[in-house]
């Protein structure tokens, strides 16, 4: 599965970079992420609870950051598995400043999925991945806004789902 896209986040590049390098804050933003621990320099271990179509399950995996060029680029190498399948792949993250208050986040990756998750869910995997990405960016946007305003954003599965839906609806109006 190839993933590619870009998103604009409300925050300057340094703040976005800081957020994307803070495991503790990230763990609250990634949908379904139950645990994120630091295994070593730039290496993390995590447990995620994700359901795609009828295939719901817990996945454990490792994430390694490589090729780090602060504050604009890193490469992620992912290796995870669960009872319902496995996931291996890598991707890149690039941050481009857009003025002084916004940052364009560009991501690209190639992920290999296997097991029942593919056999049952392959028709919806692409849209499921897009949804998860959308929820993550919605959460990140809220987090950065709160940070700028000096408040703390509420993070949770439900609220981030609504944030994502709201973003989609706003996107519809922007287009028209």
């Amino acid at each position, binding site marked *: 599965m190839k993933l590619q896209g870009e998103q604009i986040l409300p925050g300057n590049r340094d703040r976005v970079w800081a957020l994307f390098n803070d495991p503790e804050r990230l763990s609250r933003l990634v949908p379904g992420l139950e645990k994120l621990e630091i295994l070593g320099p730039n290496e993390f271990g995590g447990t995620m609870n994700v359901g795609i179509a009828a295939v719901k399950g817990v996945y454990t995996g490792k994430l390694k950051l490589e090729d780090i060029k602060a504050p604009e680029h890193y490469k992620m190498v992912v290796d995870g598995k669960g009872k319902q399948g496995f996931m291996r792949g890598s991707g890149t993250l690039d941050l481009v400043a857009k003025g002084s208050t916004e940052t364009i986040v560009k991501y690209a990756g190639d992920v290999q999925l*296997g097991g029942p998750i593919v056999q049952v869910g392959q028709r919806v995997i692409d849209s499921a991945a897009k949804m998860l990405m959308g929820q993550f960016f919605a959460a990140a946007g809220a987090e950065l806004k709160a940070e700028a305003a000096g408040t703390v954003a509420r993070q949770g599965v439900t609220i981030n789902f609504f944030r994502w839906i709201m973003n989609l609806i706003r996107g519809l109006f922007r287009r028209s």
Partner: protein
Amino acid sequence: MAAGIVPKFVGSRVKRREDPRLISGNGTYVDDIKLPGMLAAVMLRSPYGHAKINSIDVEAAKKLPGVVAVLTGEDIRGKLPTLITAAPAQNVPYHPALAQDRVRFVGEAVAVAVAIDQYTAQDALDLIEVDYDPLPVITDPEKALEADAPVIHEQFGNNISTRAEVKSGEIDRAMREADRIIKFRLVNQRLAPVPMEPRGAVAQWNPGSEYLTLWSSTQGPHLLRSYLAEVLKLPEHRMRVIAPEVGGGFGCKLNVYAEEVMTAYLAMLLNKPVKWIERRRENLATTTHGRDLITYIEAPVKNDGTILGLKARFICDMGAYLQLLTPMVPGFAGMMMTGCYKVPAMAFEQLMVFTNKMAPDAYRGAGRPEACFIAERTMDMIALELNLDPAEIRRKNFIPKEAFPAQIASGLIYDSGDYEPALDLALKHIDYPKVRAEQAEGRKHGRYIGIGICSYVEICGIGPSPMLPPSMKGGGWESATIRMEPDSKVTVLTGVSPHGQGQETSFAQLVADELGIGIDDVTVVHGDTAIVQYGTGTFGSRGTSVGGAALMMAVQKLQAKMKKIASTMMEVPPDQLTFNNGTIAMASDLTKSIPLQRVVDASYGHKHPIPGIEPGLNEAGFYEPTACTFPFGTHACVVEVDADTGVVKFLRYVAVDDCGRIINPLLVEGQVHGGIAQGIAQALYEEVIYDENGQLLTATLMDYAVPKAEMLPHYELDSTVTPSPINPLGVKGVGEAGTIGSTPCVVSGVLDALKPFGIKNLDMPLKPEKIWRAIQAARKA
């Protein structure tokens, strides 16, 4: 048929006697077998297409309450030998029932959990930790031949299982003398047989008598018993294999599977009955697939359309391991690829290639759909290249009626045939000249009508035993026992193992007519090795032509014995007697008769023994066919392609089949209907897809496109009757004909519709998207 007897049942539309119990929920399938203390086995399957197994930790799984045993490949290493391939191949890989060291396709069994029920066993699987190292995956058989391709079985050095060449006639001369050589590539995509009932097995071991009973959803219980005996090192007289109701086979249940071996092994190991039932996802991933053949064709032709020879290179995708007959199927395709045509020279090269996929094996037609596709696409290509009529090009090249029995280039001898009447009849039904005119008119207005024609011939009734692989158990013969019980009712034991073909009905029709009794006076028993004498089983449309012939032998022996008894009682020579309406009567005067029951009483009561005649009425027949039968026919269809959407719509579908003499037209039509449905499925809908990582993308029935009723046309059926001289019944076989004739017919029709766009060939399945893209590309060009 005995002299003077008018058949009552043979030839008439007798309803299937199997159906009342099946449609009223009174059938017993493997999953209906419930034994006291029975355990459930569930397989852990590889999520990887190719990976090294570093370790498997089953400790947590074993500790789960209710779990009785957890086994991995290491537990059976040295105890269970490799699974069996009966067909000859040069490189035959070691194929353990549970993977050892490596997994080579998605779905390969890695471990088995046995528990008090399947839910507990499944929970146990979730606790097994397997540490895999993924290895490079190869799923494209042509790429698997490249020098730098990952090697699936390292001991062979490359991915070639077998390379074989067959050459006959002066093919090089044909190539030299041709006005032109037509070259093209054909793909028979990978298909899943999808029987309605998945596989399943129940095994029971009696340690006191050292006797194993195995219920399995199989097409050949005796073959399975012989192979299991070899693998489990058990004597065959202490093994009983039962094929209860079998909900469809289509070739995929003519095999010896890892799960059957493991179920039996576990029952013996644990001294408890064990059941394993396949789930649909397992069925799509780990039951043998079919077809998967890439062919490069070269056809030397004269400018008048005469074909001089046929040359083909086969790339056969064998998957990761070889199942029972995997290497045999492509050979059939090669031997039959010249179809119904005079082709004096032929040559084919087979390259059987390992890939990280499930093994294909026999699937309804097993080689003949591929062969027919080659022959018929070749005819269409010739017609297209030379701008000749596709019907006429076929007529021109047909083997003429006078040539039969006709030896074709591959050496096979076609028993009987008359191909033109079937073609004429099919063309008459669709009103060929009129529909061609409609097509021409339609094209002027952006209507794309296509006319598909397929004249097929296939090989059935296997067959002379030497035709089967030398290492295959059993033979090409078939067996039957007939027993007239003391109340003059009849029990028939047949060695074939019908699972939808309807022999409980057609065999009863034969017997009832022969013995002058009612059809309800006959019961046909099959599928139990402890009851039925050894038989080979049901496959290759052989049930009636071989099994029916064996039954006729047994019937004739019984008739002879009963006539001898009656002869003494009536004081009439036996050869003047006949069976009529519950009596044995004088053929010349049917009123001079004695009731059948009196003869039966005389035999069983034996109060007045006749010298030289044993008591009882029980006779057996073992029939070895001298040759195969070759059914044929022409299918024709009219389709319309919507150029804006690529959707194919059927306007007509006509099938004219010649399966020799017809015992029950209703059964024949049922077989043809089902066959056409599966053939159209290949042409338009179905395809097993693995991604480049070896992941199976068509692992559910949401993704694998088995057609629904509304996706299929109304079938208009007709027949010609050319009896086979090979067997006493004159029958040829019809189990696969529909599958063989329909696929090329539909492809021919769709491509004919697309002719104005200059589209010459498209690979199946001809899905709307594929057709639409081809039209878009053609319009841009």
